[in-house]
C-alpha cells in the first residue's frame, strides 16, 4: 500500500482533508516530523527541569517558571487548543519515554516491548482524577507558579508517573485519566477546527484487522470517533490504515457540539464547570483588585489560605454546579419531553465549553501580553545568572504598545458567550421546535450571560 494517492477521497462538504495536500502528505505519513518535534520538546522538558532545579531560585528569572507558566501556557491556551484541539498532546513529551518503551522503538515498533498492559480500573475512568489534580494544582498555584524548584519537581513527578503508568497500564492511561492538562484539552478539542475521521465507514466495516485501533496509542477506534476529545492527533491511524481511509480534516469550529447526547456521564459536565470556576477564581486572585484575596491565596497553609481554599473548592464543586443544575432544571421544567435529569445535565454541559475556553483565553491574554518580555529575557538568561545570550536580558519589550489586551479580552469573552448561547439554542432546537427553543434555552443563556458579566467585571472592569 502506498500513500501517494489520496486525491480521489471523499469527505464532508464542510471538511477539508489536509492529508490530500501533496506537500503536507509526506510530512503526515512519515513518523519523523512528529518524532523530531517530540525529541525537541522532550529535550526542552529535560532542560526546563534541570534549570528549575539548578538555575536561579528566583521565579521571575528562571526559564522554568517563565517558559512553563507564561510561554507554554499561553501557547496552549491561545494557539494549540483553540486552533488544534489536542495538537499539544501530539508533541507532548510526558508520555513519550513510556510509549517508546512500550513499542520497543522510537520510530519503529519491535518485539522488545516493555509493560504489563493492564486495563485501567473501571472505577477510575472519566475525567474525575484529572479534575482533582487540576484543582489541587490550582489551590497551590502561588508556589507552583513562582518557585522554580517546585515547578521542576512537579514536571519530574509528572513524567515519572507517566512512565510508570505506561509500564503498568495499556495505552495512554496517564494522558486519558490523570494528566491535569489532558482533561480540559480534551473537552475543548471539540471546539477546535481539526479532526481525524474515517472517510468511508463501509471500508472499515469490511476490514477485519482493525489495524488503526491496534496501533492507536490512545486506544481509540477511529470509526467510533463521535468527537475529538479522546484523539491525540498523533496521526498513527493515518499511517497504518491499509486502505488510506482516514482523513485529517479542517472543519468549522464547534463541529463536535450542538447535537443531543444520550450519555449519563457527569464527569465532562463537572470538568467544564471546574474550568469556568477556576478561570473566575484565578481572575479574581491574579487580576482582581482584592489584596486580601491575593495574600490569602499566596500564604499557603495559613488560616486565610484555608479560607481561600474552602471558597475555591466551594465555588468549583458546589456553587457553580448548583447554579448550572438550577439552570438545567428550569430549562427542562417547562418542556413536554423531559429527559432524565442526569442526561439533561450532560447534554446541556456542551454549551459551557466555548464559554470556558474563551474565558481562559481572556484570562491568559491578561498576563501574556504584559509579561511577554519575560520570555525573551528568559531565553537570553535561562539560568537567571545575569547573562544576555540574545542581548535582550534587560530589554523591556512592551508587547501591548497599543493597549490591545482589554479589547482582545472583551472580544474573546463575547465570542465565547455568543457560541455558548448559540449552542444552547441549538440544543434546545433538537428537543422542541424553533419557536420554543429560545424560551427553553433561556436559563442556560442567563447562566452564560451572568458568568460572562462576572468575568468581564474581573478582567476589564
Amino acid at each position, binding site marked *: 500500500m502506498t500513500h501517494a494517492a489520496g486525491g480521489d477521497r471523499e469527505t464532508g462538504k464542510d471538511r477539508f482533508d489536509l492529508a490530500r495536500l501533496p506537500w503536507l502528505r509526506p510530512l503526515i505519513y512519515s513518523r519523523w516530523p512528529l518524532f523530531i518535534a517530540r525529541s525537541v520538546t522532550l529535550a526542552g522538558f*529535560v*532542560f526546563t527541569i534541570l534549570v528549575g532545579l539548578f538555575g536561579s*531560585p*528566583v521565579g521571575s528569572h528562571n526559564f522554568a517558571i517563565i517558559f512553563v507558566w507564561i510561554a507554554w501556557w499561553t501557547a496552549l491556551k491561545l494557539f494549540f487548543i483553540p486552533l488544534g484541539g489536542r495538537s499539544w498532546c501530539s508533541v507532548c513529551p510526558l508520555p513519550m519515554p513510556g510509549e517508546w518503551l512500550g513499542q520497543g522503538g*522510537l*520510530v519503529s515498533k519491535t518485539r522488545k516491548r516493555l509493560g504489563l498492559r493492564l486495563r485501567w480500573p473501571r472505577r477510575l475512568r472519566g475525567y474525575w482524577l484529572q479534575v482533582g489534580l487540576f484543582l489541587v494544582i490550582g489551590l497551590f498555584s502561588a508556589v507552583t507558579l513562582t518557585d522554580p524548584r517546585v515547578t521542576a519537581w512537579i514536571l519530574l513527578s509528572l513524567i515519572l508517573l507517566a512512565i510508570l503508568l505506561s509500564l503498568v497500564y495499556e495505552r495512554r492511561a496517564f494522558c486519558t485519566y490523570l494528566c491535569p492538562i489532558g482533561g480540559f484539552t480534551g473537552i475543548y478539542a471539540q471546539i477546535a477546527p481539526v479532526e481525524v475521521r474515517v472517510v468511508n465507514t463501509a471500508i472499515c466495516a469490511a476490514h477485519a484487522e482493525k489495524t488503526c485501533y491496534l496501533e492507536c496509542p490512545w486506544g481509540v477506534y477511529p470509526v467510533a470517533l463521535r468527537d475529538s476529545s479522546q484523539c491525540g492527533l498523533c496521526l498513527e491511524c493515518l499511517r497504518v490504515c491499509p486502505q488510506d481511509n482516514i482523513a485529517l480534516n479542517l472543519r468549522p469550529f464547534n463541529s463536535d457540539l450542538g447535537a443531543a447526547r444520550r450519555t449519563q456521564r457527569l464527569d465532562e459536565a463537572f470538568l467544564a464547570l471546574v474550568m469556568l470556576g477556576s478561570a473566575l477564581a484565578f481572575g479574581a486572585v491574579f487580576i482582581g483588585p482584592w489584596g486580601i484575596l491575593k495574600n490569602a491565596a499566596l500564604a499557603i497553609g495559613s488560616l486565610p489560605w484555608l479560607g481561600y481554599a474552602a471558597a475555591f473548592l466551594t465555588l468549583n464543586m458546589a456553587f457553580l454546579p448548583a447554579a448550572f443544575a438550577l439552570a438545567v432544571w428550569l430549562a427542562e421544567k417547562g418542556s413536554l419531553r423531559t429527559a432524565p435529569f442526569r442526561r439533561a445535565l450532560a447534554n446541556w454541559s456542551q454549551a459551557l465549553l466555548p464559554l470556558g475556553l474563551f474565558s481562559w483565553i481572556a484570562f491568559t491574554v491578561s498576563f501574556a501580553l504584559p509579561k511577554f518580555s519575560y520570555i525573551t529575557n528568559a531565553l537570553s538568561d535561562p539560568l537567571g545568572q545575569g547573562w544576555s545570550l540574545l542581548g535582550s536580558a534587560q530589554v523591556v519589550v512592551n508587547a501591548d504598545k497599543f493597549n490591545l489586551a482589554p479589547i482582545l479580552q472583551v472580544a474573546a469573552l463575547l465570542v465565547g458567550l455568543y457560541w455558548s448561547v448559540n449552542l444552547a439554542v441549538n440544543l434546545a432546537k433538537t428537543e422542541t421546535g424553533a419557536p420554543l427553543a429560545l424560551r427553553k434555552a433561556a436559563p442556560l443563556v442567563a447562566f452564560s450571560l451572568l458568568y460572562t458579566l462576572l468575568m468581564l467585571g474581573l478582567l476589564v472592569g
Partner: protein
Amino acid sequence: MMKPEWLARSLLVALLALAALAVGAGWYGQRGVVTLRARMPEGGGWSPGEIKADVGEPLKLRLTSDDVTHSFAVGQLDLPAVDIHPGEMSEVTLVFDRPGKYTYYCTRWCGLNHWRMRGTIEVSSPDPSQTGKVVVGETPLYLELGLDIDTPHPAQLTPGSKPAASAGRARLEQVPLKYRGLSYYRTHSPAAAWEALRAEPFARDLSDAQVWSLVAALWQANTGAERLAEAEAIYRQNCAACHGENGGGDGVFAAQAASEAASMDVPTSGQPIDAHDLKTPANFTAAESMLGASPAILQGKIVRGGMGTGMPYWGPIFTEEQIWALVDYLWTFQFDYSLEVNP
C-alpha cells in the same frame, strides 16, 4: 529496519545531552556566584542566611527581592549599601581581607521586623595563622568594667531644663583635669559627674543649673560636629524607626516592637521575658534614665541589644567608632550643644 531507529536514537540522545550540557555548562560557569534573595523577615528574610567565602577571593553576589525594596550592607565594612528592587537583579562583589564572621543586613525599613533581616558571611583563610581571629573589635567597655547594663540606673537629680553646653564652656578651664579626659567621660554618668563637680571647691558659687551646663560642656568637649553629623545619619537610618526622630522612643514601629518582643528570644540577663514586662524603645529625652547612664552603658546596650525589648544587637554591624559616635549623638537629646549662648 534498524537504521532509521538508530538514527532516531542518536538524535534523541544528542538532544538530551545538549540540554543537560547547556545547564551543566551554565551551572559550572556560574558556580562562584551566590544568588541572595531578600524577603521581609515575615516572609523568610535573607535566603541563604549563611554564606561562606575565602579571604582574598572575590565573593560575587546577585541580589534580588521577592517583595519590597531592600538594601544590602555588610557590617563593619566600608561599603555603600546596595539597593535591591523587587524582581530585579543587583550585583555586588565583596573581597574580604580578614577572616571572621561578618553580618549582612538590610538598611531599608522594609517592615516591622526589618532589623531581624540579617545573615552571616563566614570568611575563612587558607593561612592557619589567620583563622580564629574575629572581626568584631575588642571587648566592649561595659564587659571590661563589669557593668550590669540591664539594671535600671536612674539619676537621683535632674536639671529643670535642658542644660546648654554653651553656658558652661567658659568655665571649662576651671574644671580639674581628671574630669576632662575621654576615659572619665566614657565611664561616668552625667549625674555622677554633676555630683562630683558640685562637691569641687571651684563650683562652690555656681548654681545647680550652672553645674549642669558645665557637665554639658564637658560632654560636648569629648565629641565633634563632624562626628555628630555622621552619627545623626546612622541614627536616622537605623534607630529612628523605633526610638523616634527626636529620641522620644516614639518611632513609627515603637508600639509594635514592644508587643513583638514577647515572641522572640532576645538575650536578657538570664530571665525569660514576661509578657507583662514588655518595654517600649528607650526614650532618650527622659532625663532620669539618660543622665544616670554612662556612655559605657549606652555603648553596651547598642552593642549587645536585648533589654527585653526588640532592640537589635549592633555589635557586628557598626564599627566601634561608629557606636561611640552614636553614643555621643544620644546626649544631644539631653544637652543643648548649639554654639550660641542662650539668653
